């Protein structure tokens, strides 16, 4: 069995000519009746649009309190893959593997250096250095002077996280088909250069979400394999306690990204909703956010600074008429903050596209939004916080 046989088998599944004719006729008929309706109901639609806008303003008033932001923009040509703040300044890498520094006053980015990193993989920032893998080596690069240090060499290396003086990395092992089917996870102590195995080689995949002290929180996929066939899995959110040398599953819920704060793991789950998981008893709580009753509601990004969680949310807005009376489909995105102590929510910024990355030092929130419809030509919004 090869790709050609697969293609030729699938090739035979086609829409019938009769079906095509029927659908075409139905579409034309519906399109024409819509054109007639559009002319007749233009006035009614204008009035409806007014009421929708009025409703939206009233709804927003419930949440928008003490707006504390200033927006500036910067055109990003090749997306943003990872972003972090160092010495009061934003740095980011794009999908062409270039490290930039960003001037929030002028909204301009300055190229700092090209990085020899595995394509489309993120860098990790820790105490003025970035850590990344080229596949065959893991490097430490000083942001200040660009000094480069090779920390480890090997095959199929990938950096999973850096924090608390530890670098977490994986070694991938390819199967006969050329895909990575097994992984081994290591911890490299940055100051002592000691290397130890965290998880021995297996089919299990660990995605480290956050590290605080000796606690690591991870999303893991653990396939149950019988006779070389995957018959199930034990996937979910796991907590790894390094001081105890143990790990335990705290929830079957899978996380796309998340942060530890106040004894909880705040995360975006597989359904793109914001939840918290108690580290103590694994209790899952869905966090209520403005607009979450809207169709297609998704949380795209989160970050936590102190007692405040920041989220980039998105939903499909209703189709509406533009000035020319044409129907336009639209989407809406917002940067929202939540005080984790009081539960107070504030809308910080309405974005014109989806907010995929957030980064803050507590003074400024940087929100990267992609181009619309999705493309890598986006913008960085600078939101000044009180």
């Amino acid at each position: 069995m090869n790709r050609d046989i697969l293609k030729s088998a699938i090739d035979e599944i086609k829409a019938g000519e009769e079906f095509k004719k029927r659908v075409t006729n139905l579409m034309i008929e519906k399109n024409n009746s819509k054109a007639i309706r559009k002319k007749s109901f233009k006035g009614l639609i204008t009035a409806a649009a007014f009421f929708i806008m009025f409703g939206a303003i009233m709804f927003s008033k419930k949440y928008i309190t003490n707006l504390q932001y200033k927006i500036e923009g910067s055109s990003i040509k090749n997306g943003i893959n990872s972003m972090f703040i160092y010495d009061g300044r934003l740095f980011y890498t794009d999908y062409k593997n270039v490290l930039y520094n960003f001037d929030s006053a002028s909204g301009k980015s300055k190229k700092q250096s090209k990085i020899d990193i595995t394509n489309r993989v993120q860098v990790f920032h820790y105490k003025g250095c970035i850590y990344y893998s080229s596949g065959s080596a893991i490097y430490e690069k000083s942001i200040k002077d660009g000094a480069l240090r090779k920390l480890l060499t090997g095959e199929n290396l990938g950096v999973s996280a850096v924090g608390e003086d530890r670098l977490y990395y994986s070694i991938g092992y390819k199967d006969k088909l050329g895909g990575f089917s097994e992984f081994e996870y290591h911890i490299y102590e940055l100051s002592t250069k000691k290397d130890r195995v965290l998880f021995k080689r297996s089919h299990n995949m660990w995605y480290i979400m956050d590290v605080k002290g000796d606690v690591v929180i991870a999303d893991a996929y653990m396939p149950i394999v019988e006779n070389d066939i995957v018959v199930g899995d034990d996937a979910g959110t796991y907590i790894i306690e390094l001081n105890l040398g143990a790990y335990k599953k705290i929830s079957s819920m899978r996380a796309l990204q998340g942060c530890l704060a106040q004894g909880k793991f705040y995360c975006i789950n597989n359904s793109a909703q914001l939840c918290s998981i108690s580290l103590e008893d694994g209790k899952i709580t869905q966090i209520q956010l403005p607009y979450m009753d809207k169709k297609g509601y998704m949380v795209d990004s989160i970050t936590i600074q102190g007692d405040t969680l920041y989220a980039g949310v998105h939903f499909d807005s209703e189709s509406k008429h533009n000035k020319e009376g044409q129907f336009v489909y639209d989407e809406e995105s917002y940067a929202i903050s939540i005080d984790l102590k009081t539960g107070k929510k504030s809308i910080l910024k309405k974005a014109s596209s989806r907010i995929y990355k957030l980064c803050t030092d507590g003074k400024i929130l940087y929100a990267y939004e992609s181009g619309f419809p999705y493309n890598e030509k986006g913008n960085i919004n600078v939101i000044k916080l009180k």
Partner: protein
Amino acid sequence: MNESLYTEEYIIEIVKKYSDMLVRISFFYMKIRSDAEDVVQDVFLKLIENPRKFESYEHEKAWLIRTTINLCKDRLKLYWFRKRTRLNDDHSYTTPEKSEVISTIMELPLKYRSIVLLFYYEGYSISEISKILHLKESTVGSQLHRARKMLKIKLEEGIVDE
């Protein structure tokens, strides 16, 4: 396509251009030809009901694929659909020799089928599939890997090498 209400030429073209691909995707979910075509008809009508601005051919194609998959999933969840008497899977599209390949893909868990189709048939990269299906790249990669492994075991040989 930047017009809000479509021209007849556009409608004829879009049906011609995409109906085979969408029926293929839908068929791998619905397993029955008439159900697959019903879903695709609804996708096209949805486009007329809520005209959209597509900035590129890729965006237009990705929207149609995603909407088809979503409608298939919605349909499969319906009470009447789940409860009705299931007929055998429909293989009237294909020759008996090839129907074995189709059956094998159909036996894959639902979430793997669209990924296999988009990767092997439509030629999308893992990164593109992750954007279309709103999944992490690593999730698409691992699901593809598992699907390939299952297909290999079921068909006794590997499908492709990368």
